[in-house]
């Protein structure tokens, strides 16, 4: 067995055990999250044994989630599609067993669609990291293209990432906890952190980009808007909108400052 295959198997097993343990913890201690597992709705009583097997499968697939990114080109697309298809299959089975789709096929299809958006978000985050590396190489070789006005072109991929993250996190927060504050807290922590991180990375590779502040704000609003959920904690509109804008500015300024500091040290 090659080192790569051995490592893959280890990740698969560890991920699987992690997934099964996750279910055990959720079922035992997660009072609010527990309702998702126990409250089967119209789907009937969930089978815990089948759930454990499916959670193991999903955990194992998460364990080997970096596999598609081990290569590039056609290989990356093929591996990503296979990984998504297997995850969608395991997730659909879990939905049916637990009755999360309330017996409706359109709801199940919607869930699978949300999963696809989640994959797209992960892929975009990875692509942005690659783009940052390429940007640094261009800079060292003196072949970096001239910056666009207000950094609008440079900021675009980061704004799309904010849009996708806003949609996914808002939806996941709602799905995990429809009535309580857990979902709101998840939303309030992850989205601002994502907006800050994207701004920071953008600043680190391209300097201060004022366009990002506006684009990130717009992206957060659209991300929340298309989720079409009851607004409990809305970071897209009203006073809540100031949070992504402020964190976009702070993150981008912090990244740009780090860049300046590195430039000074290099001189």
């Amino acid at each position, binding site marked *: 067995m090659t080192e790569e295959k051995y490592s893959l198997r280890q990740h698969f097993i560890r991920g699987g055990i992690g997934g099964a343990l996750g279910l055990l913890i959720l079922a035992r201690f997660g009072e609010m999250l527990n309702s998702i597992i126990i409250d089967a709705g119209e789907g009937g009583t969930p089978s815990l044994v089948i759930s454990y097997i499916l959670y193991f499968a999903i955990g194992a697939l998460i364990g080997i989630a970096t596999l598609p990114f081990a290569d590039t080109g056609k290989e990356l697309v093929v591996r990503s599609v296979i990984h998504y298809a297997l995850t969608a299959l395991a997730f659909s089975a879990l939905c049916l067993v637990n009755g999360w789709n309330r017996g409706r096929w359109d709801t199940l299809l919607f869930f699978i669609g949300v999963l696809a958006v989640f994959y797209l978000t992960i892929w975009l985050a990875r692509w942005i990291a690659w*783009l940052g590396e390429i940007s*640094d190489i*261009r800079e060292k*070789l*003196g*072949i970096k293209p001239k910056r666009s006005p207000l950094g609008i072109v440079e900021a675009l991929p980061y704004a799309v990432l904010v849009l996708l993250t806003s949609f996914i996190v808002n939806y996941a927060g709602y799905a995990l906890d429809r009535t309580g504050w857990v979902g709101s807290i998840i939303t309030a922590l992850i989205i601002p952190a994502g907006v800050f991180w994207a701004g920071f990375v953008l600043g680190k590779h391209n300097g201060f980009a004022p366009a990002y502040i506006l684009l990130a704000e717009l992206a957060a609003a659209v991300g929340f808007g298309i989720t079409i959920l009851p607004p409990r904690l809305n970071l897209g509109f009203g006073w809540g909108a100031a949070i992504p804008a402020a964190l976009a500015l702070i993150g981008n300024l912090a990244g740009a400052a780090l860049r300046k500091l590195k430039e000074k040290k290099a001189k």
Partner: protein
Amino acid sequence: MKVEFIKSPELTEPEITVRASELTPEVSKLIASLTSDEPIRGWRGGEVEIIPLADILRFYTDGKGVSLETEKGVYSVRERIYELEERLPKSDFVRISNSEIVNIWHITAIDLSFTGTVRLTLTGGRLVFSSRRYIKKLKEAVGV
């Protein structure tokens, strides 16, 4: 171009600093010519030519043998790719795939595809492709 000699008895070997407002292709070529080691012998039409490293765009293998390419044309090389990789100065040449080594000072553009494939444009418009696996080497070569 201004050339200046500064006598520094404390130095054990000559030291050259290139100062310019920007790292233009001309400056890159100058640096490459200063840092290059012994030239390579290239074969074409039964004749051998001595080719300065600074003139070489890339080395590549097409299954039949190893070739080198300059702006003037393509030559055959007797060495294998892995031998060249060991011999060539690491600050100037970098392996970008199983079958190719490029002169980093002849890279004029780098583009990233949506699937992570990296396209390098060399002097004269020659396009070559690298995968993510080899980008680490390119990063090391340019000092990122």
